Each structure stands twice: as structure tokens, then as C-alpha cells.
């Protein structure tokens, strides 16, 4: 077993465990922190899979942006007694159906193997030439959504 495989397995195990704790932890704030751990480990997996830029964006935007947004929302909101409703039976059933369907669908096909490493300069060139219009549309969408979110939160005054 080489070092690459060992680190990949370790990071995947940490990711799966922290995802489970994020869903199942008793305290909501602990769940958000475990979500942060999960997102950072996903960024590490992207680094291992040769997508360095995506890994950086993941850590900056997800672990730095979304988690901080969730933590601020939890800290600003008034804390009531935790009355968390849990429906274990239907959820477990749906997950079992999903897993059975997936393994039936997967069958005996063997995934390809190889290793492509996209250079960040090439990725930047593609994004800023071939996908320039889409990037502009996306940034326009982000601005519209941010204005809408701020209107939703502070719409009373």
C-alpha cells in the first residue's frame, strides 16, 4: 500500500465520520462544526485528485463562507429549547431503497483508472475564454440573490 492510497483512505474515513456526526450530533452548533471538518476534508480529497483550484475554492467558499454564515445565523438567532423532531423509520427506509437501487444499477461495471492533472493556468484560460459569458451570468445571479437575501432578512423596516 503506497502513501497515496493510505492518505486517501484516511481522509475518506474522516469525511464519512464527520458527515455522520454533522447529521446526528445532539447540539446544532456541533453539527455545523462537523460540517466544517467535512468540507475541509473534501477540499483535501480534491487536492489528491489533481483539482487544486477546485480544492482551494472549496476551502475558501464552503469552509470559509457557508460555515461562517451558518455559525453567524445560529449565534444571532434566539436559543429556544431544542425540540428537534426526528422521523427515523421513513428516513431509514428511503436510504435503504436508495442503496439497493444504486447497487443494482452499478452492476458489474468496472470504473476506469488513470490520472489527469489539470494545470490551473489552463483551467483559468478556459474559464475566462470559453465560459466567460456563463461566469458573468453567474456573478449577476449572485448579486441578485444577495440583494434578495438581504431584503428577506431586513424587510420589516
Amino acid at each position: 500500500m503506497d502513501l497515496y492510497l493510505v492518505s486517501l483512505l484516511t481522509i475518506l474515513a474522516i469525511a464519512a465520520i464527520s458527515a455522520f456526526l454533522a447529521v446526528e450530533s445532539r447540539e446544532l452548533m456541533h453539527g455545523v462544526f462537523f460540517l466544517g471538518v467535512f468540507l475541509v476534508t473534501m477540499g483535501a480529497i480534491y487536492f489528491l485528485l489533481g483539482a487544486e483550484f477546485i480544492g482551494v475554492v472549496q476551502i475558501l467558499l464552503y469552509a470559509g463562507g457557508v460555515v461562517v454564515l451558518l455559525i453567524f445565523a445560529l449565534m444571532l438567532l434566539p436559543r429556544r429549547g431544542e425540540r428537534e423532531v426526528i422521523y427515523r423509520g421513513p428516513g431509514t427506509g428511503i436510504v435503504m431503497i436508495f442503496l439497493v437501487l444504486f447497487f443494482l444499477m452499478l452492476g458489474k461495471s468496472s470504473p476506469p483508472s488513470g490520472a489527469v492533472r489539470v494545470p490551473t493556468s489552463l483551467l483559468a484560460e478556459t474559464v475566462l475564454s470559453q465560459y466567460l459569458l456563463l461566469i458573468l451570468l453567474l456573478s449577476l445571479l449572485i448579486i441578485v440573490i444577495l440583494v434578495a437575501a438581504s431584503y428577506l432578512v431586513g424587510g420589516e423596516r
Partner: protein
Amino acid sequence: MNETSIILYSSIIMFAIGLYGLTTRRNAIRMLISIEILLNAANLNIINFAHRTALTNAMQAQVLVLFSIALAAIEAAIGIGIFINLYRIYGEAEIDIAKKLREV
């Protein structure tokens, strides 16, 4: 079992965890966390298969994941905006007490 299938199976496990959280919990913030886990499992699969193809395909897949990450971030922003309003109106953010979105 090569690395591709290892990552494929673990992303299935993460997707199942996210699905379990989304279907069992009714707290709004917890459901948002589960949605993020689902999106990340899907993104991991895209990057995983992009690692095994030709360079141009891998580049297109990475651009797709870039868009997906940006859309997930703005989805979290608008979701939290709605949930803060839920807290204001009902005092808690359990989804099943929110029968209507206007003021009560």
C-alpha cells in the same frame, strides 16, 4: 478495487448520510447541512471521474463543479434568509410548524 471505485463507494455512503439527515430531521438548519453534504458527495463523484478522462473533459468537469459550488453557496445564503424569517414568525425553525409563509 481501484481508487476510482473506493471514492465512488465512499461518495455513495456520504450521499446516503445526507439523504438520511434530510429525511429524518425537521430542523431547518440541520436540513441545510444535509443538503450541503448531498451536494458535496455529487461534486466528489464528478471530480473523481474527471480524474480518469482526457484533459479537455477533466477541465469541463472542473468548470461544472465550480458552478455547482457557487450555486450551493448562494443557495445557503437564500436558505438562511428564509429560515431567519421563520424564526421571527414562529420562534423556532422546525419545518413542519411552518404551514404558511406569510405572517400569522
